[in-house]
């Protein structure tokens, strides 16, 4: 299920404040002990008996095949590399808009990429942000013979940022 909570466009006036906020978020994100393997870290409020199960996260769903201008942001990749990937897409001339997708702990990273792109392109680019929730399922693998395998579902917040050119390039 996908629940759209808010759809808002960051206005230029509000931008510096928001930037600070988001950079702080990112810092927070860095100090947090990174979750073991996996981007989405929301627990969804479910308690798993660690003596009975190991949690094996399934990869988050991606639409297949993907359009070239769909970029899934990961917390682990090099920040500069992600930005240059976006820049390449713009400079190739094929696309006037790209979509950045981030889940859970990679939301701050996605937002920072968008902001960085905006500062780089100095006003010729704007973004619009969608936030939503995605349901992820994990496998619970039993640690002993008597427990049956099961799965847990958790909701993770995700962000879709549409970065588009405001100035038309012939």
């Amino acid at each position, binding site marked *: 299920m996908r629940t759209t909570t808010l759809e808002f466009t960051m206005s230029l006036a509000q931008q510096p404040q928001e930037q600070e906020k988001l950079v702080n978020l990112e810092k927070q994100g860095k100090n947090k002990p990174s979750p073991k393997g996996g981007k989405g870290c929301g627990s969804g409020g479910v308690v798993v008996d660690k003596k009975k199960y190991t949690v094996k996260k399934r*990869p988050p*769903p991606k639409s297949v095949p993907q359009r070239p201008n769909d970029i899934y942001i990961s917390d682990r990749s090099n920040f500069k590399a992600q930005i240059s990937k976006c820049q390449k897409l713009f400079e190739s001339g094929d696309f006037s808009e790209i979509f950045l997708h981030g889940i859970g702990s990679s939301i701050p990273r996605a937002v920072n990429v968008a902001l960085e792109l905006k500062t780089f392109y100095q006003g010729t680019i704007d973004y619009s942000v969608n936030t939503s929730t995605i349901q992820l399922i994990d496998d619970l*693998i039993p640690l002993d*013979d008597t427990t*049956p395998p099961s799965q847990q579902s958790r909701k993770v917040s995700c962000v879709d940022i549409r970065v588009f050119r405001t100035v038309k390039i012939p």
Partner: protein
Amino acid sequence: MEVDETVESLGVRNFLAARIQEINSLSNQISTSGIPASKGLAFQHVPKHMRRRAVSHNPKRLPKRLQGIHRHQVEKSSGSSVIKKAKKPSRRHRRRPSNLTEEYNRRQREHKWLETHIWHAKRFHILNKWGYRIPKEPTAKGYRAGYRAASQFCAMRDISYYSCFELEGNFQLISSKISTSFAPTEVNPLSLSSEMYKSGKREGTFHFYRSGSYPFGYVGRVRFYWKMDQSSLFLWVHPAQKDEILNEICAEFELMSKQNLVFRRPEKDKDEPMDTASDETEISEEIPKDYDDAHIDRKLLPKKLCHRPKWINYSTNVILTDLEGVFNRFRLYGPLATQTLKEVFQVLSPAKLEKDISNNDNINKQFWWLNYYQDKQEVLTKQCELWEKLKSFSQIPCHSVIPLTLNDPRISIPNKTDPVVKKKAKPVVESFDDVGPLLDQLQSEAVDYPILNEKTRTKAIDERMSQEEFNKRQSQLLIPGSKLNLGVEENQVPIILIHRPNTASTRFKNGGWDIVLPAGWAMPIWIALVYRCVRVLGLRESETFESESGSSVHSNEDGFLPPDSLSGEKEADGRLSDLQINYFKYPPAKRPNFIKLGCPFPFKIDWRSLLKFGSAKNTVDIDSFYIMRNPFFLEALRNTLSSSNKNTIFNQDPSNPEHLLIEICLTIVGKGSIGPGAIVCIPHETDIVQMNNKVDEVNDNLEEPVGDDASAHKKREDLRNTRDRMKSFMQKKRKKLRKKNCNGQPIDLTPFSSDKLQVINSAINSLWLPDSEQILKNMSRTPIGAIVFGRETYSIAKCSGIGYCTFNGLKEWFNACAKCDWNPRKLILVRDCRNSLVYRFAKLEICV
């Protein structure tokens, strides 16, 4: 006329005998061997007008009556090649289908072919391994392309060389015996009878140890799944470990072999006699005793699909069947794998079944699916629903076994290659439906998977329309290239899809699907997949993917067989001999001098000497060693090494710590590369300090001093001189002998043959090989382990490798790090001994 009265009586017998003798001698004179050499050769007895010059090379120029003699004489005198051998049959004759089949069967006697062999033979370099011809790598070098395909698109491998066994019998008996004898709980926390595996809905793996030898006696990894009704267990075993596992299981369950023919020889050997008729009826009632599969069009493998070799225990009713060749298995990688499968596989729908039933008059006669699904239509509806809803790999619970019945994949093969990646992309990330409960229902309702049931499986293989027939039908279509509509005659294929989750979340995602299909159906499905642009990989990818995913203890592939198993030891020995032979082919000036390089293990890593070196008193002789596979222990070890917690696992030693190896994954920090045989060493404090001082550079001066080869060099020189002198001496002697011996009598040259020089040559060669114990002792940094496989890892853009460290060595290193804070990043040294003297820094990770 006056009667001549000198002859009074005629002794008929005597007369006849004499006359017979005369006639015989006369005819002998005249016949083939009649003309003695002194009278002249055959071609000299040709009348003048028939004499020809060309007879010397063309005996057909002689009259027919003399050709035989001429041939005989020429052979006698010189045995020359005037006589043309029997003409090789023309290419066309050799390629006639029946002759071709015979030729292929003959070539398979020593090494078995996979069903897709011919396809691979045109595109791959093929190896002989484990009794099979296995495609190793594509002829077009494609390391990076293969990796790209497997990480971003879709790639596949034919792994049908894995052996499949079926163990029938009482569920409790089988699972308890296997769990207690072969699958110790420390290493395999989930037993065969656990809730997870016993329903047959999931495929499991367990580490197979020889009975009673844990922790030693590791054999290999075995994949298994139960049949839904728990009547039999299917085991998938690597071919290198097959014999060992077979022997162990037979010994444990007290099974006796039943005389059965494995392969039908093309020369039609006599069948070995079956056991008494009564046994036969007990076991395979449904398939008649004289069932002969000769009529089935199977070009490549004349397999006997029924009456497979069995091992039986009559008292406990346990039967082990060797199902080699009955199943094929393909392994798919890549995020597009699910989408590709959806394109290739059209699932049998209930609507089609109904149509077929109504079209088909005599249901009981034909077509396995009509009989089978007649009363199981709900299974088909569930199957269709599941297949429609399945959009992503992450919807399926891990390791699930999914039974499917497909329409003939040949029908929907596109005319041109139709890559999945070029399809129109969807703009929005959808949240996919939870398919778990639906799958559960399907698995429960399809109680008896058709492919696992011998009767239906054999029928499905039998009824496959031959490619020839299929092509004929296609050619008869009115509009060429349109979709063929076969109606009832369209084959349905029973398969199993096995889900394979990612083992490493941060590195290469090696998850995907395994397809298990019945024999004979490999090529249709293979071609269908190839036409969707699935990249085909070879055996070398099993190694590279294992190292990309960073661990071999709990990985999907069996890339390198671990050194504590017999099969791994054998592989290493094979590699040793190959490498050694190649080494000595180089001239001495081109060979890397392993003594100078300080390389203790140039060709094969001797774990025993490494363990001996690491043992407390350095005197313990290590006979056997083992690799830690207990997941809890490894997890604890990993936590200890990653945190600075001094309350460590090293406080309590595991059993036999001096025989223990731990698997590690090294990633090089900074410059340098590692390959197989690289030695892992503990750094000195000064090394780390030096490194830290240069902010981001790595110290290039960390070198091992050049080894001392002087004495060995001198010895080699001396031996070479001796050998050269001996050689020239022998030559002279032989020349003299030959000169002396003018009579033409055979001379005995053996006392002066150059074979005598072999002893010296081997002595020289052994002087090139390093003394590993000496070198380990004299190394400037303490060696604690070695790398088995290392190369450029694309998934992390660094050079990394997998190897093993001794437990004592790891303990030492950890204690050294914990004592003082000079090694906060916990770096370790590694040196690619076979190539260089320079030590490189690396990060160490325990493979869990």
